């Protein structure tokens, strides 16, 4: 059985939620093995992260270097290549960072690479059997991954729930001495926070959220009218921002805002995992989509198969009849 490692993403001295999810994924591959965490970084924050992982991992490999204080994927890759033994299975969260790191890492480790894994069937004949999704989640596939030279497996955030098993008391092993000089032709300069925008969609208890199904910028007004009648705000999925029909500050998803409304109307939104990742707090989720096979219907509470261009005006009219005229103070805070 190959040794299983998990790459830990962390911030401000605290491990990301993915740390326990990767441990759960590791248990799906080999329940008998206590997986090993690998943490790169620098200083006291790194020590805090490593200590926090002792309950979840049997060993924690600490890699400290001033050059790793910010996780530049090119430098992290060099550090991992220096320490990860050949033939290992390395689990990485399929985040903005994992997408940056893992493809190149797999080449340098001469290991197989499988991205965005949502399920693990197990190990047979020195191959992993994994589950992925394609076409925005409309169909899934089983994937066979040979692990004779090891594998880098990127795990979708939220796909594996923490096992909640016995608490370990892992040991922190300092591997910093195995690094050579880290250098890269890609230099991190700074992080620029997203613009606040005109409306703070995180403060509304009801969101009328539009996706590609809105079809035309002039149709955005249909959502605005409904939102106004309901005292809601209009939010959206990525294609609407890409088309510049709404500002980036209105985007819900892993690359946009995280919202916690009571009611979320997904209008013409297919339901990619990146979008769903931005909807928290288990709201009453209503999906309106003309494609009856849209993945959003798998997660919605209520579904309506209709063209939103036709349905939104009908809904707006009905809301107005209910005397839900817009009043002040509908914001949550």
């Amino acid at each position: 059985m190959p040794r299983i490692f998990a790459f830990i993403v962390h911030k401000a001295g605290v491990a990301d939620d993915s740390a326990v999810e990767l441990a759960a994924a590791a248990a799906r591959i080999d329940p008998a093995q206590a997986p090993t965490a690998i943490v790169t970084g620098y200083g006291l924050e790194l020590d805090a992260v490593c200590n926090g992982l002792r309950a979840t991992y049997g060993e924690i490999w600490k890699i400290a270097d001033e050059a790793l204080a910010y996780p530049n994927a090119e430098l992290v890759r060099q550090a991992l290549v220096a320490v990860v033994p050949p033939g290992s299975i390395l689990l990485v969260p399929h985040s903005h960072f994992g997408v940056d790191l893992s493809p190149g890492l797999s080449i340098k480790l001469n290991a197989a690479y499988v991205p965005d894994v949502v399920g693990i069937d197990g190990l047979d004949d020195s191959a992993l059997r994994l589950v992925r999704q394609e076409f925005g989640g409309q169909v899934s596939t089983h994937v066979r991954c040979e692990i004779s030279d090891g594998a880098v497996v990127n795990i979708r955030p939220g796909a594996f729930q923490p096992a909640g098993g016995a608490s370990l008391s892992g040991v922190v092993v300092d591997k910093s001495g195995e690094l050579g000089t880290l250098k890269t032709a890609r230099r991190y300069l700074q992080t620029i926070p997203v613009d606040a925008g005109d409306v703070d969609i995180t403060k509304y208890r009801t969101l009328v959220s539009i996706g590609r199904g809105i079809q035309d910028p002039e149709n955005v007004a249909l959502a605005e009218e409904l939102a106004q009648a309901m005292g809601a705000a209009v939010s959206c999925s990525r294609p609407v921002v890409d088309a510049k029909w709404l500002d980036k500050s209105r985007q819900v998803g892993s690359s946009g805002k995280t919202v916690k409304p009571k009611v979320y109307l997904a209008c013409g939104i297919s339901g990619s995992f990146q979008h769903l990742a931005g909807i928290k707090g288990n709201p009453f989720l209503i999906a309106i989509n003309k494609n009856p096979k849209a993945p959003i219907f798998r997660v919605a509470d209520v579904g309506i198969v209709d063209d939103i261009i036709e349905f939104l005006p009908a809904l707006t009219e009905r809301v107005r009849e209910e005397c839900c005229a817009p009043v002040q103070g509908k914001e949550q805070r």
Partner: protein
Amino acid sequence: MEILVCAKRVPDTSENEIELNGAGNDIERDELVYSVNEPDNYAVEEALKMVEAAGGSVTVVTVGDSEDEEILRREMAMGANRAALLSDDAFRGSDGKGVASILKAFVEKGRYDLILTGVQADDGAAQVGGMLAAMLDYPFASLVNAVEVLEGGRLKVSREIEGGNREINELDLPCVLSIQTGINEPRYVGMRGIRQVASVPIPTLGTSELGLRVDAAGQAAAKVRRLDYFVPEAGKGAEMLEGDREEVAARLVELMKAKGGLN
């Protein structure tokens, strides 16, 4: 600046419902509308803008078969100067590393300052750009949503990260970038433009033309293999409201009131 853009022809998910075929080993492809992978189109637009500002040329390349030539022609109609189709029966069944190996062989036959890919294909894995960069020992940045050319053979690149924040990096050329949708507004391509490039010859290169090792790509080299397609279990699934549109709207209003979404 000499720029290479790697593109792919994919089923257009905005035009198609993706369904399984009868055997369950593939999606039903007979009625599918194909188009250029959307992020790849943004990558071509970004390349064209950079060349318009700083000179140079844009080459578009794809790994596929004769049917895939149509997207190369489309991107030439958009303004790309050259195109190449990398095609060989021996390439079938390649995994991401195989495709990256084929592209590496093509890159090494030319001289490019910058290589762009789309961030991900609808049927793909967001992997080939990063693999290609590692094979070439070029720096790489993914999820790129802004590029600025600096003096001295460097780029200032913005990456999309969590929460819509942007991570700014400086990269030395040559490098590989994966381009995110929304970075620009891809120009319109009309039928007239397509007709103008209809007879432009597009070279096809196979294993021998690329000088590729026979074991570098294809089914035999693939460590990662798709076994089947299936439709994921529905979970609890949504309660579907059906019937007359006005009736459905009325029932929905009642539900929203009950859930605190309306006063």
